[in-house]
């Protein structure tokens, strides 16, 4: 009995209309744009973010070791899943693209399962392009040993500029 009631309830979010708020228009220079299967568009078919918009999303900080720095470094930024939610993403697969044309496929499941950051601060300081900025996808390597592999290191796109939701 309980189960039968619950099932339609679980389906509700999918049927309900999307939240009334829409993604506001960026005021500063665009640092990240989400294309493809996104609903909350604010520029053409894309959902674009300036640094302030990313800063307004819930922020998370953690320090972790990475192959790129000798010491553990502290990364701060919104969670990738929050960014995707803000863009109304409804795809299964992401393709992250960097300023240097680096591309890498990231399953949406990664963002759901792990606290994947769209880091915008390194040791509480903004990252310039020459220091892998302005955005850096970071996995919580120190929290989960299984993440410490070439596969996940390759998914850490730095100088991130766009995500295509597929």
């Amino acid at each position, binding site marked *: 009995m309980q189960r039968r009631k619950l099932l339609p309830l679980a389906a509700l979010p999918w049927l309900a209309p999307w939240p009334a708020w829409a993604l506001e228009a960026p005021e500063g220079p665009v640092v990240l744009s989400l294309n493809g299967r996104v609903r909350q568009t604010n520029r053409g078919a894309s959902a674009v973010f300036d640094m302030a918009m990313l800063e307004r999303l819930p922020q998370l900080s953690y320090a972790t070791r990475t*192959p*790129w*720095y*000798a010491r553990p470094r502290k990364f701060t930024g919104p969670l990738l899943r929050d960014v995707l939610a803000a863009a109304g993403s409804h795809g299964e697969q992401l393709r992250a693209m960097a*300023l*240097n044309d680096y591309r890498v496929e990231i399953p949406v499941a990664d963002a759901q399962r792990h606290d994947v950051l769209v880091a915008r601060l390194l040791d509480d300081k903004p990252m*310039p*392009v*020459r*220091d*892998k900025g302005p955005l850096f996808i970071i996995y919580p390597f120190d929290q989960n040993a299984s993440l*410490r*592999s*070439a596969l996940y*290191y*390759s998914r850490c796109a*730095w*100088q991130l500029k766009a995500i295509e939701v597929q």
Partner: protein
Amino acid sequence: MTPPAPPALSVATRPANDAGAMRLSVWFSITGLLLLATLLAAAFVQARQYTLLNLTVQHQDDYLALNLYQVEIEYLRLREQLRKEVDAPGSPALQLRYDIFVSRVALMHSDRAQRLLTYGEDAEAVMQTVDSFVRRADLYLGSDPRGPLSPQAAAALLSALETLDGPIHQLMLEASHRVAGRVTERQAQVRHHNRIGLALTAFLLAAVLLFAGIALRQMRSLEERRRRQAELADQLRDARIEAEAANDAKSEFLADMSHELRTPLHGLLGMLSLVKDSPRDPRATDWLGAADDSAQHLQRLIDDIIDLSKLEAGTLTLLPAPVDLATLLREVLALLQPLAAAKGLSLRLDSDPALPARVQIDATRVRQVLYNLLANAIKFSEAGAIVLRARQRIDADGVPLLAFDVSDTGIGMDGDTVLRLFRRFSRADDPRARRQDGSGLGLAISRKLARLMGGDLQAQSTPGAGSVFSFWCPLRPAAESPLTQAPALATAARALQVLVAEDHPVNQRYMAALLARLGHHATVVDNGLEALQTLQARAAGAAVPAFDLVLMDVHMPVMDGVDAAAALRALPPPIGQVCVVALTADVYGDTRERCLAAGIDEVASKPMSSVALRALLERRFGNPVAAPGTPGLPALDSPADRSGHSGELPGLLDTATLHTVRDLMGPAGVPTLYGGFFAQAEDAARRMRDALRDADTEALRRCAHTVKGAALNLGLPALAQAASRLNREAGTLAAPHLALAVQRYEEITAATRTLCEGEGLLP
């Protein structure tokens, strides 16, 4: 006779079994340890591999190398963009390309890249050139530019950048080679570990196989053990069945024997009733003869049963004494000669002249065995000769043996029959033969006796060709002595007053008649209480002479013999000191012991033969009165008298010593000397009785010791031997045997005294 031998194989194999199990368990432990060590080694190698892999993951050399390659790509892209800038200045793309290039260059400065690319001097130079270019370009494209990039400056930067072309490529190639080298090295390591892993696996396999092999062996040995146990169980079952069969045989024997005992008894009773009903019938003599035959048959049967019972109960004691061997053999042959002659058989003695003339044996028992063997030979032979061969033999251990062979020309027996021959209650012949003679116990008894003597009895036979029965015992030569005859019977000084306490009227009459025959006066009472009263009454009345002896049946109504004796001993002297001899048919139990403990002087077995009674009276009271005109009673005793007390007493006197003593003391001194000695010896006997009653073996031993030395000095070897035996075995013999030995000592003392009197040695 012998119970089925317990299977010996299981006992023999068990220690080997245990050793095997121990060896197996040691192997088990070794293999187990080996297995454990291998597993640990395998675990160690795997742990090492895991660490190595983790190290690789942490270093991420491969990925870092990829990033470094991108330095070159970004370098090329920056150069391209800078060339475009020279042609068409003002593109924002240059700034981005430059920043990306710088970010890539920064990677080369990171610790890990340093570790990956241990720069040589060339690499150092390249890095310095790159750094100086970045410093120069930062003037226009850094975070804090000094001014906009002019086309001239761009051209200058481009030419500076183009000089990096070769060195950067060289650097990347080097990085590539180093990474490749690392990968190769790691692969080699992994291969090495794999090899070790493989070896360990192979070893593990071998160990497991070994383990399995041992387990299999263990299982087999368990299976073997189980099989053996099953076998053992089978054997036990067989043994039980055999034991049950033996028990059945015994029951059957009892049934048969009861019947057989009844048959001669019926004959006896029948004949006696005929005589009683018609006392004047001229055929009475025949009837009495038949009654006598029946009685003798009955006595033989009962004697056999009693012998076997004693042998089985272990209460039969051998009484070895010096014996004239030739005389003994002649006697046995003489006893059987009529039987052999009646069947037309010749009976021969073939004695080895090398045999010592006198040997130390229990004459009664040796005679019994030989009699039995010869009687059997006669019974089963219809024609031909029976030979008794006596010779000396040496056994495997070098012990000299006295060996007798009885060979016949009879029907012979097959192997199975020979095997069954020595069992109790079995006979070689068919049941009809039972009528003829014997209890079927003869051979079983003979073999037991032979073994008791330290020898054996065996049979060899061929059907139709006759049999040879071989009987041997250790040969112990005895000293030559001319004075060997048992003391001759002489007449006693007076008639004895004997009180007979016996409840059975027939036995009462028998005893009274027997005593009367021997010239004594018997007073008969029915029980122990009457005996006591009669004794007291007789002591009170001065008219009649007091009793010399009480013959006391042990089992009586009202008051039994033991209680009566105890009560009697409590009376004041002289009544309390009258000589009491108990009569009992008990062969078992502690009757004898109880009697002696109650103060009875001697225990005699029932029925008492005239010879035994005469010997008893002689021992106790000197030579009895010979009844007028009675030249010994008819054969109330069987040829081989088995009362056990009338064994020969040879060697009573040693003439050589006697002569010495006579020479020393002079004719006048001798009687005093011997009289004193006998007083002492008889006193010692009394003290031995006391010691026996008090279970004081030490006192007993001391008494015996005193007598022993004196007896030897006076030339009384038999007495010395009896005393010596008491002295030697007082501490070890069981009470009943000790009592018997004391009794034996008393008998010998009495006999020796009689003999000495005859020799005129006593006052």
